[in-house]
């Protein structure tokens, strides 16, 4: 029961208490062979006077739980104690993980930590993602408290990071740490060409950029034939224009799908990406020019009961 009590209190208060110090019950609720043997006993009924009974029963010098191998003999309780401290209170998964984190935080509070900006970036699960992953409604406030502790634990110096901390933090991390993703470095080929792909609406553009004098061919045609509208021509070479590279590179591009506007703007993305291969320093100016980020907008699908995506049929009296 002490473990249950400790666990429940931990949710609210992490002050050091006499009980936890003596019982050393940090991981007592972990599945253990000793308790598992007695699990067949029904523990469904709430015990109103349980606390007083147990306090009398438990001797002050209870052995540390980790050491017992013949636990069946040493059971200090009259009835079986549930494995999870959350047994009588709420859904267990988050609470158990939270208790682990709290105990770890307490246990390793004195390990040296490194500054936040030196820590390897970690993709934490957001509250919603965590709820989705475990399938229960973890409370927002509790999750925030838990994350604060988890992040503090994550700051422990990597050379001294205990394995159990790593294991304890695992449920709160995303499966893929996208911060560690590195873009593939596109090479400049033997002819000095770089390749970039861009998309917009339903159009896809591929552009090959090579050092030159500003000639642009789109689908084998000059820019004026490919795009009748001057506006479209400008948006196609917008990145090069803003970075003043229009007279320094030649572009050979293929565009397909969609309409003229989409094609022109897909081309802007493709050219900008290919340009970045030649001059990576242009990435930020190009991003500010809006030539790096893909515009995710697409045609909204039609819904049933609607005439179009949003339009409703005209109201008719009868």
């Amino acid at each position: 029961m002490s473990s249950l009590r400790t666990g429940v209190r931990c949710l609210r208060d992490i002050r050091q208490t006499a009980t936890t110090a003596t019982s050393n019950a940090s991981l007592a609720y972990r599945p253990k062979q000793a308790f598992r043997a007695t699990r067949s006993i029904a523990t469904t009924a709430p015990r109103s006077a349980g606390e007083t009974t147990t306090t009398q029963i438990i001797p002050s010098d209870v052995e540390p739980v980790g050491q017992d191998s013949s636990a069946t003999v040493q059971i200090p309780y009259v009835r079986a104690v549930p494995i999870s401290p959350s047994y009588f209170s709420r859904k267990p998964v988050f609470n158990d993980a939270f208790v682990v984190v709290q105990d770890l935080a307490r246990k390793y509070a004195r390990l040296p930590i490194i500054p936040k900006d030196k820590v390897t970036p970690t993709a934490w699960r957001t509250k919603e993602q965590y709820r989705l992953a475990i399938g229960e409604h973890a409370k927002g406030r509790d999750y925030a408290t838990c994350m604060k502790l988890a992040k503090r634990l994550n700051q422990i110096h990597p050379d001294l990071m205990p394995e159990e901390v790593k294991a304890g933090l695992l449920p709160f991390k995303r499966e893929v740490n996208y911060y560690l993703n590195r873009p593939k470095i596109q090479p400049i080929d033997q002819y000095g060409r770089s390749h970039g792909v861009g998309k917009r609406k339903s159009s896809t553009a591929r552009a090959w950029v090579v050092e030159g004098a500003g000639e642009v061919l789109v689908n084998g045609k000059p820019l004026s034939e490919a795009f009748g509208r001057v506006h479209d021509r400008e948006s196609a070479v917008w990145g090069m224009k803003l970075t003043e590279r229009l007279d320094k590179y030649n572009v050979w591009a293929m565009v397909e799908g969609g309409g003229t506007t989409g094609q022109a703007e897909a081309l802007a993305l493709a050219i900008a990406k290919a340009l970045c291969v030649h001059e990576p320093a242009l990435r930020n100016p190009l991003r500010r020019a809006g030539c790096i980020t893909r515009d995710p907008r697409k045609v909204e699908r039609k819904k049933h009961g609607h005439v179009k995506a949003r339009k409703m049929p005209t109201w008719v009296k009868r």
Partner: protein
Amino acid sequence: MAAANCWRCLGRPSTQRLLAPSSIPSFKNPTSVAAFTTSATFLAKDDNQERPIEAPGPGERKAFRKRIQLSNDNALKVSGLSELEAQQLVDPTAVGQMASLPTGLVDQLRTIEAFKPTQNWGLFRSPHMLVRKDTVDFLGDMTKRIANKETVRTVIEGERGVGKSMLGLQTMAAGFMNKMVVINIPEAQDLVEARTDYSYIPRTTPEQFSHPSYILKLLQALRSANEEVLSKEIIKLEHIHLPGNLSRNASLATLANVTKEPEFAWPVFNALWQELLQPGRPPIMFTLDGLSHIMRISDYRSPSFNLIHAHDFALTRLFVEALGGKTHFPNGAAIVGVMTKGNWLKDKSVEKALEQARAAQAELPIPERDAYYSKYDERVFEALKGVEVFDVKSISKLEARSLMEYWAASGVLRMRVDEKTVSERWTLAGNGVLGELERVSLYVSRL
């Protein structure tokens, strides 16, 4: 941010612009002082009392659309540019120079309708032109060969807006400056689209037709533009079938002026043509814009209600025979057909004939006709037999820069002209297509 509605009258901004200014109270009408008013209709009544707008008369709209304005007093005068000389058009070192057209030459070119309404002459103080590399290449070769009394038969080809008609104009300018007799058909479309009157030429087999009014107009333009050359030449042949009395030593200018009647236009034109073909005459330059239009069956009907082929018209036949090499020119001649891409009827015969001509010019194997296409027009192949094809290409950045500097000096291009801007416009104009360069640079101000 401006409100979408006017706060005073609840009118949309565009409608409000049409109304009388509400800030000035009208004392005739004390009610109009009210701050809140729905008086748009009220004010409209006042406007109705003014005289109604007259509709333009017949032909006025077209005349306005087709007018050619060669000067603009609002444009700035560009100083420091030389007048065009004949030598400049064939001098490779003059490539990229702008030159003004001499007044006399402008009059001559205007008379034969070398300027087109689609060209933006009206934006500038006086007509200037760019000497391009294509100009020098084409005219240099042509001038040399005409000096040797050869006949140059060329079709000017190129993308849309690349400057084909402009090269035609430069060719005519060179013709005038080299004292050639320049005949120009400004729009071949006019000859085939059943817009002008036509008549059967008697005693012709197979039957031929003429455009009496059109030819009369052409004859008069031809005479007044080439007066200086024609008045020096004395007639050599007998012209007893022509109206009026031509004296023995009448000049060709007199011959061209002998009739004012459309019905005698073709005989007089033909007589003049025969005179020009005599040895010792000045070389002839015959140009036609919109060549592909006369390479088809026209919209005219014969008396038996059959459609007439364009080559059955006397004037087009004259041109087509000259272009196809059937006419012998003892004094040298330049027969130039300018293709058009703006209003172009795609025709497989013309395409194939030009493809073959190109191959022959480059001494490559001649491409065969498509064996599965039965509608090839044999007369088109006859007409384009052995012609040279001159492809007008896009301009270089150097030429673009000199042109843009001229625009900037004229005040129509309000931007700094440096390497960066020239290069940018050059790219936007499809790697230097001249018409597109004009579009991306000037059309902002043309609004």
